[in-house]
Structures are given as structure tokens and as C-alpha cells.
């Protein structure tokens, strides 16, 4: 099997999945998904509730097996039970509810849970735990009881727990849903840093401000990929996204409206900074740069 770094880290071919596939009324969740995810990419998957986002995520670390089609992680097929451990060490996952992922009564013990399951020698476990807590910025909290932490801090501990497996790819399944704005910023900062260090990140979210940070955005609808592209490409389609019951960042909507009034105004602005820059240029002589 080719293992050059050009090979996509995750490859999905004709994936179809139905819950209760063998019963009388199967519920189809995913249809004909074809996707390649390259190393180091930052991918955002958005879609309304029920579009299949979480179902898709669970296929990436073999928590679910396709009804039809295949999922390949680093060349390993998720249907192969002997590869399970390797696959789950390569692809780590952080879930939505901060409390329901933490097993132990002390932070550093929970982070150690993964490495312990791998049967690593205690010295190595100790090393990994310290390293993981350090990169998420929770080292000072190593001896805390989880229920004394804020939701954002708990998610960071969960992140550390996933990182302690030394994965090459990280999946965040709506991990910021239950966080307040400050907590969300904390977690996203850590994730962005990890991505800059080369970790492939796949985030499932319904906060558009998060999706704009990604390299690629996938929009799921009724189990299919409806739209795919860079954030700029995808969020232009304000009306289409609205029809898919999604939001666009306020700034993008504003840009789109101004674009409708004056076609030389760009419709694909994503952040406050871009909007301000654009406006300042147009308003011309009144700007002075602080």
C-alpha cells in the first residue's frame, strides 16, 4: 500500500449508511458519499440537524461501519476488525457533551485512559499525559476533579485525552455546542494551533464563525453532500444556504446584500476585519489607520 504523504489520510468511496439496515424499515442516513481528506486539512461539515453530519463523523473512526461502500483510514479499511485499534489511534474524536466523555475522577487519569487502553508502559503514559495536557493548556489542572471545571475546560481535557493517543486526525463532533462564547474561543484556539502543527481537523458545527476558519466546507443535506468548496465559495450562496436551513455569518449576508445593490461590491467577505477593510477603502479619504 502506498504510504506517501500525497495519499489522502481518509478516503470515502460510495458510502451509504442506514440505521436498522436489516429490519423492515431502515432509516437511510447517508447516500453515495465520496470524499477525500488530505493530511493537514481543516475541514468543516455543516448541515441542519438530521442531515447526517454526526453519522458521517462516526464512520471516520469506525464507530459505525458502512452499509455499502468503504471508508479507508491511512489505507486501512474500517470494516477490518484487526485494524480497529490502529484506526482509532489515528483518528481521535471529541464529542458534544463535555461531561459524558470523561471517565475518571481526576483530570490526568482521564487523559491517561486512552494510552492505558493501548497497553503502553507507564513511563510512556506519563509522558503522553503531560504532553497532551501541556498542548491544550490544562497542565495546572492535572489533579482537579472534572466536575469543578468549566465546560470549556472539560472539553479541553477531552481534547487532551484524544491527543494522548497521538492521532494524526482529530474529529470534533459539535464539540462547541454546549459552550459559552468564551469557552468556544478557548477550544477553537487550541484546535487551530493543533492544525497549524499538522493535525488534520474535521469539525462538525452549526456555528458559521467556526466554519469560516476551515480550508474546506462541506454542506450536508439529507445524507448527501450538497455543496463543497472553500468557505468563500460556499458562503456566497446565501440564498441556497438559507434554503438548506443554515445560517451565514452576518458579515457575509451584509456583503451579499450590498453586492446586490452595487455589483462591484464583493459578495464573499467572511470576517469583520475584511468587511471593515473593504468599507474603509471605499469610503476613501476619511480613514486613518490606527
Amino acid at each position: 500500500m502506498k504510504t506517501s504523504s500525497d495519499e489522502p489520510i481518509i478516503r470515502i468511496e460510495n458510502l451509504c449508511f442506514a440505521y436498522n439496515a436489516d429490519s423492515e424499515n431502515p432509516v437511510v442516513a447517508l447516500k453515495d458519499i465520496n470524499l477525500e481528506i488530505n493530511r493537514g486539512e481543516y475541514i468543516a461539515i455543516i448541515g441542519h440537524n438530521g442531515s447526517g453530519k454526526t453519522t458521517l463523523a462516526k464512520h471516520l473512526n469506525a464507530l459505525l461501519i458502512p452499509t455499502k461502500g468503504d471508508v479507508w483510514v491511512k489505507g486501512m479499511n474500517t470494516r477490518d476488525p484487526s485494524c480497529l485499534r490502529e484506526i482509532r489511534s489515528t483518528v481521535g474524536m471529541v464529542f458534544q457533551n463535555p461531561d459524558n466523555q470523561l471517565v475518571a475522577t481526576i483530570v490526568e487519569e482521564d487523559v491517561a485512559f486512552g494510552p492505558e487502553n493501548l497497553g503502553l508502559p507507564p513511563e510512556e503514559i506519563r509522558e503522553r499525559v503531560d504532553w497532551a495536557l501541556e498542548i491544550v493548556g490544562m497542565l495546572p489542572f492535572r489533579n482537579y476533579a472534572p466536575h469543578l471545571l468549566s465546560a470549556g475546560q472539560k472539553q479541553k481535557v477531552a481534547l487532551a485525552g484524544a491527543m494522548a493517543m497521538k492521532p494524526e486526525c482529530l474529529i470534533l463532533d459539535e464539540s462547541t455546542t454546549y459552550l459559552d462564547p468564551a469557552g468556544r474561543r478557548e477550544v477553537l484556539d487550541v484546535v487551530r494551533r493543533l492544525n497549524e502543527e499538522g493535525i488534520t481537523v474535521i469539525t462538525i458545527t452549526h456555528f458559521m464563525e467556526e466554519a469560516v476558519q476551515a480550508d474546506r466546507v462541506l454542506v450536508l443535506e439529507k445524507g448527501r453532500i450538497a455543496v463543497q468548496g472553500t468557505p468563500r465559495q460556499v458562503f456566497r450562496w446565501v440564498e441556497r444556504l438559507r434554503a438548506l436551513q443554515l445560517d451565514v455569518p452576518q458579515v457575509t449576508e451584509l456583503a451579499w446584500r450590498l453586492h446586490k445593490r452595487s455589483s462591484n461590491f464583493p459578495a464573499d467577505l467572511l470576517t469583520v476585519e475584511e468587511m471593515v477593510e473593504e468599507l474603509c477603502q471605499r469610503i476613501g479619504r476619511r480613514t486613518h489607520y490606527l
Partner: protein
Amino acid sequence: MIKVEDLWHTYLKGTPLEAVALRGVDMEVYKGEAVGIIGPTGAGKSTLIQHLNGLLRPQRGRVIIDGEDLSDEGADIRAIRRKVGLVSQYPERQLFRPTVAEDIAFGPQQYGLPQDEIHQRVRWAMEMVGLDFEEFKDRCTSSLSGGEMRRAAIAGILALRPEVLVLDDVTSGLDPKGRRDLIKRIERWHRKEGITLVIVSSSMEEIVQLTERIYVMKEGRMVMSGATREVFAHPQALIEYGLGVPQVTEVMYTLRMRGCEVATDILTVAEAEEEIWKILRGNFAFRTLRGMGGGRI
């Protein structure tokens, strides 16, 4: 309608884990208003609203609801809970009866209302939250989607026909469409049914679309209050407190800081569009004049 005077509250008083949650909070809510309360986590918002329906009694200070002082021993707390309906965070937790209609009926039953009155109220409440009566009344509560469960739980409080509705982060955890729908409905309840609203939220969408006046809390104190528009016109302070402001408000404020003469009390995309278009068009006209050899500046 609601008056809070110099309210203090300490959790676990007298133990080593003691924590002061409220430090001399003042607040007023008049009948028919829609008031918001925002602030970072731990500011004391939930503690404050739990006083509004008697879940917590004032340790120090006064809370007066529709003329009734909660510090009085004989205060009729149950009557207050009928007038002030509190929807807690993630209210779907409270669902426990097998079917939707039965669960919504729980509240009215607790107050001993007659059967047909209960039936009427359940119907009305379900209509208000957008759960079709015939379709959902016998549905199993655990078979509902997240959004439907939330609406069923809210209906459970509405069935008490409260005069005041206190909502604690009512859209948190919902997807964008769910959020939009629910906010529209709440706005309708306020407008059509005249229900007074007290909204605690960290969602700027909710605050901007629903409230006329807001209070800003931090570390147990009220640090700012005023008309929603005015408070958001000073986003600097809010950002310092770790709160978000609508993106468009931030855009206008940043432009102002850069020297552009723009209004900053902008809350929605539509308002921003109008204001910016005015500026751009004005500038455009000016440029055209220059191009024609017009005045030098």
C-alpha cells in the same frame, strides 16, 4: 411588576465551599416589557432569575413580584409560580410522562384545574409552540427530536398561562433553523399575548430580536443597563466582559474608531445595509462631483 432591590445571595453559607453569587443587585421589570439579562458564565444570572419565581428566597434584600414580597413568611409561592413561568436551561430534562399531552398537562394538574380546562390549555400551549395537537398529543416523549422536546417542555410552562415568562438560555443547543423559529414564536407571544419577557441569554440573536432593554451582569453585580440599542452601541465594554456583540455592530463600531462618521447603534444586517449604503452613495456622489472638476477639499 417585578422589583429586585439590593439582592444578595451566598451558596453553601457557613461551609468552606461558600460562594457569593449576588452582590446587591437591583432590577425592575414592568408589565408588558421584554427585558434581557446578559453576562459571562458565573455572573449570577441563573441565581437572579431563580428568585423571580420563588425557587430561592432572598437572603438579604427584597424581591417583590406583583406586589407580593418574597421575604414574607406567608408569601404564596405557588401562586407566584403560576404568574411567573420559569423555563430553565435545557428544559427537555423535565419531560417524564409517557406522552406529550400528558406531560404538558402536569403543570395545570398540580394546580388542581378542572379536566376540560386542562385539555383546553394543553391544546392552546401546543399550538403556541407549533406542535400540531393531533399529531403530537399521543406521541411518546422520548421519540421526539431535540427541538420538539424543547418545545414540548416550554409548552408545559405555557400551560400555566403565566403573565411573565422567564427564559434561561432557551435557544442553546438548537440548530440555526430551530433557533430562528423559536425566537419568532417568542416574539409573537410577547406581541400578541402580551406576555412579559425576561430573557437570560448568551445568544446575541435572542437579545437583539426580543428585548427592548437589557441588564449586563458581571461577578454578581449589575454593571450596565439601558435600552438594548444603547448598550450595544458601546461594544468595547461588552467585549471586555467576554461577551459577544452582533458582527454588524462590531463592523460599525470599528469603522467609527477608524474615523468614519457612521451610526453605531446598529443591531441587524438590514440596518447595517441601510447605513452603509447611505455612506457609500454619499461618497460616490462626492467623487462624481470631483471627477467633473468640482471643488477641492
